Structure formats: structure tokens, C-alpha cells
């Protein structure tokens, strides 16, 4: 393959019901950094049914070109129609890099596209960089073995270099409505004989619709909080600080917290301004999800708990004594 024909950093822009997903904004921000390093452009791929109004938003967040595919077949995400359109754009325009959010949609689409284009895909990357003094090789770093090991993966001889990135890992750029970009309409050439999955129903479950990845302050509890009333105090603390509560996996397994509030390798990756790790020992799986937080306060009885290795302030003590006092103090 002649790699020199492949250029620009492409982002699959994920929208659900006409709403851009935050991970797409984060990817556009990262793509802009990579494109600057390469001297190339950021190209957004926007698929849906009547979604062209989102193109301006893509530009404001860093896209130089937006490929817009509007078709009724693209109204809801379905594997085959989306794969066909993404591959159509890729075959025609030859991207050097393609980034996709590691959501349930992105992790369904990414491997399908990579197999169709016969190229490599690296899942759930936490860092992306361009190798120095090279032909634009993308260095894709991701955790493996449940977060116990980090690996940097490359895809030197195939294009595009594809990567999925978890929501909350990259930072979105500041919105800039003065940016200019080009909008390119794509007419999908569907092979509908391959559409063999039918959507019967989409169900949003009644749940608290919080997104802990967007919280400025996270009050996170673990085993040390206990399964009884301890979490009530954590809720109070979060409320006083205008934050949200979250937890380690142990508390989700114990049924105290719902999975959407779990921080860590198998939960969410968060980077709040302040992260309280309360009664959390800091298993590497948990650290993988929160160590990028700006400021970390840890309270744990065990002075050798690994959480203290990443904490900016570590307090050796009982969370169930300290948190109520802290709430009281802050209320003053």
C-alpha cells in the first residue's frame, strides 16, 4: 500500500437522536492536535437523518472538513448502513487516521469497519501521539490485563490507522464559532440486501441521568465506606460541593451503587477538578479510571493503601468519622 496517498485525521462523529455525543467533541479536540503535528486536516464524518445542522458544531470544535451523510437509513445507528457509509468515505478519501468513540456504538462499528478495510484497530486508547521523525505513525497507548499493563500499539503498514477512545479520556477544545470549515455532502450508495437487522424498539431506562464524567467534583466511595448508611454522608458531601457521587467496583458489585457511577477500568474514566477517594484502597483497575483527575484527596485507614501513591492529599483515618465532620465544617 502506498501510505503517502493516505492523509488527514478523520473522526466518526456520534450523534444520538440528533444530539452530538460528548466523546465526539473530545475526539475532534484530539484530532486537531494530531493534525497540527502532521500538518494535515481534521475531517469529521457526520452520519444521520437530518443532521446537517450539527456540521457547524463540528467545525466550531475543530473540524476543517465535515462529510455529511443524511439518509433515512441512518436515522438510528445500525451496524451495516453505518459501516457501508464510513467505508465509502474511507475508500474515496483515504484517511491516514480514523478515531471513533469507544461507546457501545463505536465498539460495534469500529471492528466492522476495520475488518472491511483490512486494517488494524486499537481499542480503548488512553493516549494518542504522532511518532517523531517518522512517516506519521500513530502511537496508540491503551491499558491491558485489566489495567495492570499499558501497551503502545502501532499500525505501520496499513491505513487508516484506527483507534477507539473512551469517553472522558481526551479534552474537548474550546468552542470557537468563528472557525471556518468546508461541508461536503455524501450520497450513500447502500447495498440494502445486507441490512439484516431490524430495530424493533429503543428503550431508555428510568435512571438518574447523571454523567459522572462531566462532574467537576466527584465524591467516590469504596469498601471502607461500608454498605450501610455511609453513602448518605458521601451524598451530602457531594451536595455541599456541588458534585456527584461515584464509587469503586466493589460498591457496584455489592449493589450499593449503579454501574453508571462506577469509576475504573470496567467503569468510567473521569478527570474532575477534585476527586475524593474515600475508603478506596486504589486497585490498579480503579486508578486507571481516575488518576488524571486534577486534584485527588484520599482518605483510608490503611497507610499503605496504593491510593496514596496518586493522591495529592492523603489522610490516614476512618472515612466514616472524617466525612461527617467535613460536611459539618463545609456547611458553616
Amino acid at each position, binding site marked *: 500500500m502506498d501510505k503517502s496517498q493516505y492523509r488527514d485525521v478523520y473522526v466518526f462523529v456520534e450523534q*444520538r437522536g440528533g444530539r452530538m455525543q460528548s466523546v465526539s467533541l473530545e475526539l475532534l479536540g484530539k484530532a486537531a492536535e494530531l493534525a497540527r503535528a502532521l500538518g494535515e486536516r481534521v475531517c469529521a464524518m457526520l452520519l444521520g437523518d437530518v443532521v446537517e445542522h450539527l456540521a457547524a458544531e463540528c467545525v466550531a470544535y475543530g473540524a476543517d472538513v465535515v462529510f455529511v451523510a443524511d439518509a433515512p437509513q441512518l436515522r438510528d445507528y445500525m*451496524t451495516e448502513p453505518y459501516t457501508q457509509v464510513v467505508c465509502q468515505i474511507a475508500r474515496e478519501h483515504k484517511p491516514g487516521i480514523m478515531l471513533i468513540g469507544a461507546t*457501545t456504538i463505536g*465498539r*460495534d462499528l*469500529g*471492528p*466492522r469497519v*476495520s*475488518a*472491511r478495510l483490512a486494517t*488494524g*484497530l*486499537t*481499542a*480503548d486508547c488512553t493516549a494518542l501521539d504522532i511518532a517523531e521523525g517518522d512517516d506519521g505513525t500513530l*502511537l496508540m497507548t491503551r*491499558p*491491558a*490485563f*485489566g489495567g*495492570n*499493563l*499499558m*501497551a*503502545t*500499539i*502501532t499500525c505501520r503498514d496499513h491505513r487508516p490507522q484506527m483507534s477507539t477512545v473512551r469517553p472522558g479520556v481526551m479534552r474537548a477544545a474550546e468552542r470557537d464559532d468563528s472557525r471556518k470549515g468546508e461541508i461536503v455532502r455524501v450520497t450513500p450508495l447502500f447495498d440494502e440486501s*445486507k441490512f*439484516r*437487522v431490524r*430495530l*424493533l424498539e*429503543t*428503550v*431508555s*431506562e428510568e435512571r438518574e441521568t447523571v454523567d459522572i464524567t462531566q462532574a467537576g467534583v466527584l465524591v467516590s466511595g469504596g469498601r471502607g465506606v461500608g454498605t450501610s448508611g455511609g453513602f448518605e454522608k458521601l451524598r451530602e458531601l457531594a451536595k455541599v*460541593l456541588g458534585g456527584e457521587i461515584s464509587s469503586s467496583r466493589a460498591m457496584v458489585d455489592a449493589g450499593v451503587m449503579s454501574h453508571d457511577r462506577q469509576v475504573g*477500568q470496567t467503569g468510567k474514566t473521569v478527570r474532575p*477538578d*477534585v476527586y475524593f477517594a474515600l475508603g478506596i484502597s486504589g486497585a490498579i*483497575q480503579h*486508578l486507571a479510571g481516575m488518576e488524571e483527575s486534577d*486534584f485527588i*484527596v484520599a482518605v483510608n485507614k490503611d497507610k499503605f493503601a496504593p491510593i496514596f501513591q*496518586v*493522591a*495529592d*492529599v*492523603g*489522610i*490516614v*483515618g*476512618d472515612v466514616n*468519622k*472524617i466525612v461527617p*465532620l*467535613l460536611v459539618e*465544617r*463545609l456547611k458553616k
Partner: protein
Amino acid sequence: MKIVVCIKQVPDTTEIRLDPATGTMIRDGVPSIMNPDDKGGLEMALRLKDEHGAEVTVVTMGPMQADAVLREALAMGADRAVLLTDRKFAGADTLATSNTLAGALRLLGYDLIITGRQAIDGDTAQVGPQVAEHLDLPQVTYVEQARLSDDNTLTVRASTEEGYRMLEVGLPCVLTVLVTAGKARYMSVRGIVEAFRREVEIWDSARIGAEESKLGLGGSPTRVAKSFTRGAKAAGQLYEVEPTEAVEIIVAKLREKFII
């Protein structure tokens, strides 16, 4: 109905510890298990077999030791087990792995292919959809439930961030299944005894007849350039003080950071 379940033997990653002195992984003594999502997938296959009758085949790619998870699957109720093992398969990334599995699946024949959503040692969730693409089959990922709505159609519940979607998919197809699909049954005593008497078929690359350029390290577009344990950032200050004093320290720091 012919159901093939792709399973993987993985180290129990929750048992892996880091050597604090060298920062390397301690793998000694870490047990190998059947990947949890794959076990959920196997359970789904066995339930479909219980209800409608089916031949359930389990297949894995791995070293000879991976025989253990195949025998576990036989003891749970699978009918046939195939181990894909060959030095030419080694070093495979997800694309090469999916090519190897797809080669075996073409020979085995199938109405339904089930894989786990992802394996706990890699967490990529890529092999299932890539197998589906190689075999030109429709896929549904993140599956929590599946039932046969008629002889050729599955009604499937797939998990999403917001809730779930109900989908209808014609056979043949590929499902990638979550561990939560169903609590896996235990191996029966008779099943365990029999599982060790039964044959696990060993297939190599010649048997699969796959193009060698698509297998193993040579068939892998991606390479591990380097691996490392995450460097711990410099630890902050540690205080062993009375709770009231601890509270003052935290409050002072929050002020410094303009949180309060």
C-alpha cells in the same frame, strides 16, 4: 440448529499483582479461567439448546493448555470441542485472530455464532464483529437476551448506555454476549467425568486452510511497540492526624484550589 460458541482462556486479571520493586506483573500462580463474557455466551447457547434442541460446538484458539476451558464447556453441556493450535497462530492481533476463527467456522458450519463481548485480558470487543465481517454475517453486540421468535429469526435485547434496544435478526448471525446474559450453570459431576474421556479436536493451520499471510503475527496489522507499567505520579503529602485536623487540611486545600 448448529450453534458455535467462541471462547477464550484468560488469566484471572483480578488476581494479577504488580511487583512493587520492579513494577512488573506477577503472573505466577494467577489462575486461568474461561473468559466471563464467553461463559455468558455459552450459557445462552445451552439455554437455546435446552429449549429448542441444538448442537453446541465450542471453539478456541490458543496453546495446548487451553484444552482446559474446552473441557469445562463440555462438562457444562457442549457437544463438541475444537482447539485451534499452531505456532503459526501465535502473536495474532484481533484481525488475525478473527481470520483464524472465521476459517474454522467455515469448516464447522453454523446457524448461530456466539462470542463473548470482550475478553478480560484485552478488553477490545473486536474479534466478534470482525468474525462477522469475514463471514459476511449480520451482528448484534452487547447482547443481554436472545430468543428464537421463529425458526429463522432471533429477537435480541442489546444493552446501550441509556438502556437497551430490541432487535430482530435473521439466522445465520453473530451475537456478542455479556456475562450478565445468564448465570452460567455448574458442571455436572457426570459431565466432568465424561468431559475428560471425550475428544477435543485439535486443528492446525493446514486443517483450516487459511492463507498463512492472514494468520498470527504476520497477519496482524497492529504491533505492540512497547509495554510498560504505568509510572505512578509523585505522591502528595500523607497526614496521620486526628479527624478534626484532617478536616482543616482538606478545607485549606479546597480553598487553595478555589473549590470553596
